[in-house]
């Protein structure tokens, strides 16, 4: 198995720590001129999302994590697994609830997501930054009242609830930012 020495550490590097795959989010090299060097790092556990702080003696090595980010098309869910397909190889994987976690609110069939695979198994799913989804439930639209900036909740076809302007109606398609969960605009069909 490949290993990375501390002097190869940089943001985005995927390594194994305490049996879990992690990505380095910060790495600081600290060294008194004539003394021992250390690498002070922050790592995100890719399975749990938790952030760890850890200091290494420079020169130590960590095992590389076999982690790949792959663009995959969302197919469907059977309630237990969410299925994705690699559009190049047509290979399919089923991601469990913990891997899909918050992303499931934004998954629309045929949208292309980034699926993070560890040893070939999906461990997390990142939806596209922007998705287009139809409103299935909201109070009736009110025209000509945008000046106040008032909003109301709207439920989308995936089950996500977002705050929208008052003129939005059931059946409208909306463009939503999945990172903030915010309404951007109505989508032009």
């Amino acid at each position, binding site marked *: 198995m490949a290993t990375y020495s501390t002097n190869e550490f940089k943001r985005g590097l995927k390594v194994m720590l305490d049996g879990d795959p992690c990505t380095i989010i910060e790495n*600081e090299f*600290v060294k008194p*001129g004539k003394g021992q060097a250390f690498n002070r790092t922050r790592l995100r556990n890719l399975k749990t999302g938790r952030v760890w702080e850890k*200091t290494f003696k420079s020169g*130590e090595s960590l095992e590389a994590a076999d982690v790949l980010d792959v663009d995959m098309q969302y197919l469907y869910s059977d309630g237990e697994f969410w299925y994705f397909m690699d559009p190049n190889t047509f290979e399919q994987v089923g991601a469990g609830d913990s891997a899909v976690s918050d992303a499931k609110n934004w998954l629309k069939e045929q949208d292309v997501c980034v699926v993070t695979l560890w040893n070939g198994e999906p461990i997390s799913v990142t939806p596209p930054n922007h998705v287009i989804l139809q409103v299935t439930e909201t109070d009736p639209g009110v025209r000509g009242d945008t000046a106040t900036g008032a909003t109301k909740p709207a439920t989308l076809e995936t089950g996500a609830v977002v705050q929208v302007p008052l003129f939005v109606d059931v059946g409208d398609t909306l463009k939503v930012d999945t990172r903030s969960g915010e309404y951007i605009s109505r989508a032009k069909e």
Partner: protein
Amino acid sequence: MNENPWQPAAGLDVLRLRAELLTRIRAFFAERDVLEVETPLLSHAGLPTPQLESFAAHPASRPETPTGYLHTSPEFPMKRLLAAGSGPIYQICKVFRADECGRRHNPEFTLLEWYRVGFDAPALMTEVETLLESLFDDTRPVGGIQRLSYREAFLQYAGVDGLEDAIAPLRWALDEHAIPVPDGMPADDPDPWRDLLLTQVIEPRLPPAVFLYDYPASQAALARIRPGRPPVAERFELYLDGVEIANGFHELTDAVEQRRRFEAENARRIGQGLAPVPLDEHLLAALEHGLPDCAGVAVGLDRLLMRTAGVEDIDAVLAFPWERA
């Protein structure tokens, strides 16, 4: 910083500040009759200190031919000049340290190093302070530089005696300050534990401008050791805003002791799985001939420039840091 990697990382305004810094340093030493010298960057001998890794050099198409080493500091040849009767000397040069790369480190950086015959460590600290006043008078004044012994700094900021050799109290101090201990810390060498406390606990709490002095004898490097209980190395470091800027010694002049230290360092290298390096026999011969009583100091000019320019990343003061070199 410029995003495009062909472009300089430092702004042109910072490059002008660098030129101004060099001009002022040369004027300072010219006024004091300190001679500017140049010594080889590439030499036959290496530095055995296990904490510093040199770059070895060889012809590109003949990696097996005898190697030279890029120097990690100009200390050895400058001491040969002193032994040859040069009188006070200074040098501004690039030095090279493998594996040192980060927010405050670039593997190639600029040192100002100077030696004063007849000075001891306190006298040289005073001259360092005078130089800084002349460099920073109109930008970011340094103010009075405090002086704090290594022991006082450890007691005051970490609550532990940094000169004691027992490891347990050092480990407890780390524990008390919630500093996680890395794997692989040695059970028989207190210095890496001291370095962990120094970098994680003490440096962030230091006054804005301070000299630390009287280091543990085990960290003497090329400084003389003053007998006492415990003995201490006549070595000092300057910190500005918690960043190490300069390292100075009341220089060891004893050839026998110098050879003993070199050999002990090479033995430590072998113990740590590092390649031993050829000793600088020219330096040892110069010490045998007689090095005048002197003190010397090395100042990291890139870090001084970081302070002048008010930037946090060394890349912002280098035209082409390692990533773009």
